[in-house]
C-alpha cells in the first residue's frame, strides 16, 4: 500500500441552461448516484463529503449546499474559490484522506445559476464595491480587459479567439453531456453579437447548470477498480485587486501567475519536466477563449512572448496536444462545478471510458481550475501510473 490516491468514480448530470424538472438536491442526487455506481460503492463507504458552490446568489438560495450536498451522518465542509471551486474541493478531499480522516471522500459541486434571471448583475457583486464595482465589472468585462491586453502586447487578433472557440464547440458535439452542442465555424463565432469588445457571444461560456460528483479513495481501498491516479495537484492564489496585478515584476494581469505556480508545483509532484510531450490531454477551465490563450504559457506549453505563434500552430494542428476533448468550459460552464468537471473528464480519458470524446490511449491528463477573475488557479495531474 502506498500513499497514493485515485479517482475511482465520476458522475455528471447533463449540462444545460436550466433544469426546471429537477430541484437543486435532485441534480446532486443524480450526479452522486452515478458516481457511487461508477465507483461500485454505496454511501456507507463514504467517509466525508466535500461540497463546492460559488456565489449562492446565482441560485437565489443562501447556503444551497445545505439542502443539496451535505449528507446526514457524514462530516461535511464547503469550499468556494469561484470558478476554481470544484478543483479546490477535490484538493480538500485529497488533504482529508492524507490526514487519515477517511479512506474515501465524495466531492460534489453544484451550479444552479439557471434560476438567476440577471446573472451578469449578480457577477457584478463579486467585485469591490468601494473602488471598482461601479464600472460594470462582470465576468465578461474582466475577460475583455485581458483580451485587449493580449492583443496590444502579443499581437493576438479577433480570429484567434474565434478559432479557439470554434474548436471547443466542435469538440463538444461528441460530448452527450453538453445539451444542444453544435459546430460553430470561426466565421459564425465572429458574426455573433459583441458582448464586450473583443468578446463575441460565442467566445464566452453559456449560462450552464448541472452537478458533478467525484469519488476519491486511498490506494488501500481502491482494489481492482478502474482508477485515474492523482499524480500531482496544487493550487495558488493572487491579489483580489486587478489594478495591482496589471504591471508586476512577477507577471502582469495576462500572465496568470497563480496558474503558473500551481502548474509548476503539480508538475513537480508528477515528475513532469516537459508538459508538451508528457501530457496527452488537457482539460482547461477557460470559460472564454481569451482565458485559454493566457493559460498555454502559464502551463509551460510555450513562452509568453511567443504565445500567439503557439496558438497559431496549435489551431493549425501542428502541435500534438489534445485540448478540451469535452468541449471544455467554453461549451458548458456550470460555474461552481466546472473545475470538477475538468477533473472528471480527465479521469474518464485516463480510464479510457470517455466514449465518443475518448482520445485514444491517454496515459496522463491535466485539468485546470480558474476562478475569481483569475485570482485562484488549480492544476490536477491524473495518470494511469500509480505514483
Amino acid at each position, binding site marked *: 500500500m502506498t500513499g497514493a490516491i485515485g479517482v475511482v468514480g465520476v458522475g455528471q448530470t447533463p449540462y444545460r441552461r436550466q433544469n426546471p424538472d429537477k430541484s437543486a438536491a435532485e441534480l446532486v442526487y443524480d450526479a452522486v448516484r452515478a458516481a457511487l455506481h461508477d465507483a461500485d460503492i454505496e454511501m456507507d463507504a463514504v467517509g466525508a463529503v466535500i461540497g463546492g458552490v460559488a456565489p449562492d446568489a446565482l441560485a437565489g438560495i443562501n447556503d444551497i449546499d445545505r439542502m443539496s450536498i451535505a449528507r446526514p451522518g457524514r462530516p461535511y465542509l464547503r469550499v468556494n474559490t469561484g470558478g476554481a471551486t470544484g478543483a479546490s474541493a477535490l484538493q480538500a478531499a485529497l488533504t482529508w484522506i492524507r490526514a487519515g480522516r477517511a479512506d474515501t471522500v465524495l466531492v460534489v459541486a453544484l451550479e444552479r445559476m439557471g434560476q438567476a434571471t*440577471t446573472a451578469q448583475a449578480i457577477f457584478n457583486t463579486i467585485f469591490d464595491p468601494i473602488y471598482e464595482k461601479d464600472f460594470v465589472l462582470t465576468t465578461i468585462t474582466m475577460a475583455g480587459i485581458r483580451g485587449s491586453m493580449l492583443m*496590444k502586447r502579443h499581437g493576438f487578433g479577433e480570429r484567434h479567439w474565434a478559432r479557439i472557440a470554434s474548436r471547443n464547440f466542435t469538440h463538444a458535439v461528441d460530448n452527450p453531456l453538453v445539451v444542444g452542442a453544435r459546430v460553430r465555424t470561426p466565421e459564425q463565432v465572429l458574426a455573433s453579437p459583441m458582448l464586450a469588445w473583443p468578446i463575441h457571444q460565442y467566445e464566452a461560456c453559456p449560462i450552464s447548470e448541472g452537478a458533478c460528483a467525484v469519488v476519491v479513495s486511498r490506494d488501500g481501498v481502491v482494489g481492482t477498480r478502474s482508477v485515474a491516479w492523482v499524480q500531482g495537484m496544487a493550487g495558488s492564489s493572487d491579489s483580489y485587486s486587478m489594478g*495591482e496585478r496589471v504591471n508586476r515584476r512577477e507577471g502582469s494581469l495576462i500572465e496568470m501567475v497563480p496558474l503558473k505556480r500551481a502548474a509548476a508545483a503539480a508538475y513537480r509532484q508528477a515528475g513532469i519536466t516537459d508538459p508538451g510531450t508528457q501530457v496527452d490531454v488537457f482539460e482547461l477551465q477557460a470559460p472564454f477563449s481569451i482565458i485559454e490563450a493566457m493559460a498555454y504559457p502559464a502551463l509551460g506549453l510555450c513562452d509568453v512572448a511567443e504565445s500567439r505563434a503557439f496558438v497559431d500552430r496549435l489551431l493549425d494542428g501542428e502541435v500534438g496536444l489534445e485540448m478540451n476533448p469535452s468541449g471544455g468550459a467554453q461549451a458548458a460552464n456550470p460555474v461552481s462545478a466546472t473545475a470538477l468537471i475538468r477533473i472528471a473528464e480527465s479521469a474518464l480519458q485516463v480510464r479510457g471510458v470517455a466514449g465518443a470524446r475518448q482520445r485514444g490511449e491517454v496515459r496522463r491528463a491535466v485539468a485546470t481550475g480558474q476562478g475569481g477573475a483569475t485570482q485562484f488557479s488549480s492544476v490536477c495531474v491524473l495518470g494511469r501510473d500509480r505514483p
Partner: protein
Amino acid sequence: MTASDPATDLLVLPGNWNFDYRYFAGATASRFFAELRDHQRIMGRRCPGCRRLVVPARSYCDDCFEPMGEWEQVGTEGTIDAFTIIATAFPGLPEPPLLIAFVTLDGADSAILNFVQGLDLADYDAASTYLFKHDRVRVVFKDRRAGRITDFHFECLEQ
C-alpha cells in the same frame, strides 16, 4: 380542453433578492475619497517594503502584508493598460456602449479602473484601434463631487 396535466406540470416559483447594505470603506479609502472630493487629488500610499505606490490607496500591501506608509499624490494623466468596450445590455447593469479602462496614472505603480468618456464608440474596431495607438488619458473631475470613485472619469489626450 386544456392540455395541462396537474401531475406533470413543472412548478416555477417567482423569487427576488433585494437587500439593502451599507459598505464600510474603512479609514484609508475614506481619506482617498475625501482627497478626491475636497481637493481633486488622486492619492496612493507607498509600501515601505516593496516601494510600490498603490493607487487607489490601500491600508496594507497585499504583496508584503505590511502596513502602507506615506500618502502621495499621483499625476492626473496616465496610460491605458487594458480596456474593454461594453457592447451588450444586461439586466440590472448600465446601458452600453461604455468604455472602461485600467489606467496607470503617472507616478503610480498600480492601475485604477474608470470610464473613458468622449470617444466615439459606434465602431468598436475603430475605437479599439485608436486606443491601441493613443493610450494616454487625463483625469476629468466632476464639478459636483460626492466622495465616490465616480467623481472622475478619463478622457483621451490628443497625441
